[in-house]
């Protein structure tokens, strides 16, 4: 698993994040994992957060409206609007944080997903362009929260084992 290619670059000046990852699966399956809500919800949220998609119609002009849900039930909503789709090759979306009534918090960011297959391995390239540095800062802050709660989750799992000693 660890031999799979993973590249992550942040260009602060261009407010752009570049992510490249290889998967040990055929392209059509990886494509489904990124474009079908049943599969997306299984992996999109970093544990212990959960991804819950309320609406998703994967078509140009369509959207995915979903929440990241913390173990305490705290919801972080986001709205993704699909702006371009070339099946099994590329799709683009406009991503924004939102409230629970689907009102987006602008500005958001433009996401560009590229898929390619070689020898049964699928490579996914993601480019995230933020409209403002403040937006990028917020995105990173959210990421930080997920990271911190993951640490606390590990701690809460550790506690019972310590109590038994």
């Amino acid at each position: 698993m660890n031999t799979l290619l993973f590249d992550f670059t942040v260009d602060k000046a261009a407010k752009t994040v570049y992510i490249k990852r290889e998967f040990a699966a055929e392209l059509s399956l990886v494509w489904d994992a990124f474009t079908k809500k049943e599969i997306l919800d299984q992996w999109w949220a970093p544990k212990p957060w959960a991804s819950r998609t309320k609406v998703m119609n994967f078509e140009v002009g369509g959207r995915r409206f979903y929440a990241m849900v913390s173990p305490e039930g705290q919801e972080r909503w986001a709205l993704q609007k699909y702006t371009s789709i070339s099946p099994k090759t590329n799709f683009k979306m406009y991503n924004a944080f939102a409230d629970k009534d689907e009102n987006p918090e602008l500005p958001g960011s433009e996401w560009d997903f590229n898929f390619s297959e070689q020898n049964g391995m699928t490579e996914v390239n993601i480019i995230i362009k933020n409209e403002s540095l403040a937006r990028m800062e917020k995105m990173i802050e959210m990421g930080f929260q997920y990271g911190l709660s993951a640490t606390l989750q590990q701690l809460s799992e550790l506690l019972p084992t310590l109590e038994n000693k």
Partner: protein
Amino acid sequence: MRNRIVAHIFAANRFRIKLNHMRRDIFQAIADPTRRAIITLIAVHAMTPNAIADNFNTTRQSVSKHLRILTECELVKQEHQGREIYYSLEIEKMKEIDKWLNQFRKIWEDRFNQLDKVLSTIKKQRK
């Protein structure tokens, strides 16, 4: 063992304090395009405010203001050489920004590791 848990919680708290501190400081510093350009300039070698101002279509006062903010955020340091003040970059402070960005990298790493598991489960089901 209890001490270890306390240490763990303490570390988490300290990290949060540091984050708040950084939010106010470093990101304010790099949120401005002129300040980012100044950072790039003085990353190469230390420069006087006049030399820095020569690179911009702006007043010396404006450059001084940017330098003050960068100094307050501890992203640049001053060094007196005779009558001149030279500004240079605090590399360690810039590294803190990268450390913070690494938190974000970690999220994607975790997310993709989960996807690996999902993909292999689906592959098994199909067989």
